[in-house]
């Protein structure tokens, strides 16, 4: 337990100390909220869908979590290159604990980031549908964070340097975000796009956030929770396996 805690603490301390990173990574969500939210607002309204910013905000919260989580997971590549990973790998601690501590720490940072973006969207003009359901939103933020931090860590276990990083961003992170229903409603999509959105893990996170923040849901909250729990568990198991195989 104490070993998981100390690894968690380390990740959180690193996050809190990199203030420029925290602030820097707020730029993108704010830009999306303002440019897309207000830019597409009038068209969205004319299409009879109501306010676009109300629709967009949960998706942008999910986006900021996605990015922070994946980066936190992949931060392990730095640790490998700068040797610190070795220090944890020779310690008499089951590797699964090390992996768990890292993932929990990275996920905590991602949840923080999600909460900050939520507060910013409220300032910009987003309305919370029910304060009671905010706890539900928190649950979804935690699930999204855990899943993508674990995914990032699993990917980083297989990479020894940043050569493949751009590939991951362009072929995994970006599609996962753009095709998740974060930017557009999933109802009435062409079948191909609908299919992709259905197998996109983030879709369920975004949907859960939509439900708990605005009261609308595509899949239903039960499905969202179940899917996220199952895939998070699966990626944690796979990640632990890959992590235990790391050789330096």
């Amino acid at each position, binding site marked *: 337990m*104490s*070993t998981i*805690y*100390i690894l968690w603490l*380390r990740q959180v*301390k*690193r996050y809190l*100390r*990199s203030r*420029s990173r925290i602030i820097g990574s707020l730029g993108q969500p704010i830009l999306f909220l303002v440019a897309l939210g207000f830019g597409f607002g009038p068209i969205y309204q004319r299409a009879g869908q109501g306010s676009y910013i109300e629709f967009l905000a949960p998706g942008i919260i999910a986006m900021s979590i996605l990015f922070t989580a994946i980066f936190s997971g992949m931060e392990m590549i*730095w*640790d490998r*290159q*700068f*040797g*610190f990973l*070795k*220090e*944890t*790998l*020779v*310690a*008499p*601690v*089951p590797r699964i604990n090390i992996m768990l501590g890292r993932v929990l720490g990275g996920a905590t940072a991602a949840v923080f980031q999600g909460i900050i973006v939520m507060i910013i969207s409220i300032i910009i003009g987003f309305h919370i549908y029910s304060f009671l359901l905010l706890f539900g939103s928190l649950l979804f933020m935690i699930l999204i964070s855990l899943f993508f931090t674990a995914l990032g860590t699993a990917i980083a276990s297989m990479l020894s*340097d*940043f050569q493949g990083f751009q590939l991951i961003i362009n072929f995994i992170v970006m599609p996962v975000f753009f095709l998740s229903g974060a930017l557009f409603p999933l109802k009435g999509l062409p079948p191909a796009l609908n299919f992709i959105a259905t197998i996109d893990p983030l879709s369920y996170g975004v949907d859960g956030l939509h439900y708990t923040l605005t009261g609308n849901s595509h899949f239903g909250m039960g499905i969202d929770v179940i899917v996220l729990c199952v895939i998070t568990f699966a990626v944690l198991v796979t990640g632990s396996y890959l992590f235990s195989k790391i*050789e*330096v």
Partner: protein
Amino acid sequence: MIKVTNLIKKFDDFTAVDNISFNVEKAEIFGFLGPNGAGKSTTIKMLTTLLHPTSGEIEIDGINPRLHQDKVRASFGIVFQDPSLDDELTAYENMQFHAVLYKVPKLVRAKRIEELMKYVELWEKKNELVKNFSGGMKRRLEIARGFLHHPKIIFLDEPTLGLDPQTRNYMWKYVQNLNNQEQTTVFFTTHYMEEADRNADRIAIIDRGKIIASGTPEQLKEQTKKESLEDAFLELTGHAIREEEASGLDKMRTMRNAWRRK
């Protein structure tokens, strides 16, 4: 304490460690010498569970590291050749992190951290981030950290690289003490032959993946009929300078610095 039989490690078609066997007794200080790229670090990585051997057997304190990784990991401490500190943590936090990972009892934890940090004269800087430390200070901290949990075996992979003679002496005094009082087995590599001569009970010389000579420093000198261990070493391994394959690390450092503000 350490028993190695017919150990082989191949990377693709390159054989880094080529069928070596040796024993290290309990409470022995064992020097593992060789030119760059001879296979020293690869051997240490295999002994410390960071690499899996291609073939051959290893026993650490009677345990097979392949079968019981965690048990073996609990029995040794290591000071790595290249840095392994967390730059974004303070010196004290790095020590604390290590103490928790190695389950140093809470009661002795704070006391021992203070003692060791005073020993390497970093106590005044305990709350500074490690990234602001000079190379020598990092090295000292790393050494202090390696001694924190009083292991049965300690691996020192070129521990004194870049240290001034004062600190080097200091460190060896500590190692000798630990060796005397707690019967700690010491396995070290170094390029300073005089250091090996002075401290090692026994030495093995590895070159191109093979152990080419072993014995006490005196025996090696006798065997080659040389005055100093350095001459004996050169006699055994030849004068040609070895090339070591460059790592991607330098590239990474430039990349990281590009991202930094200062």
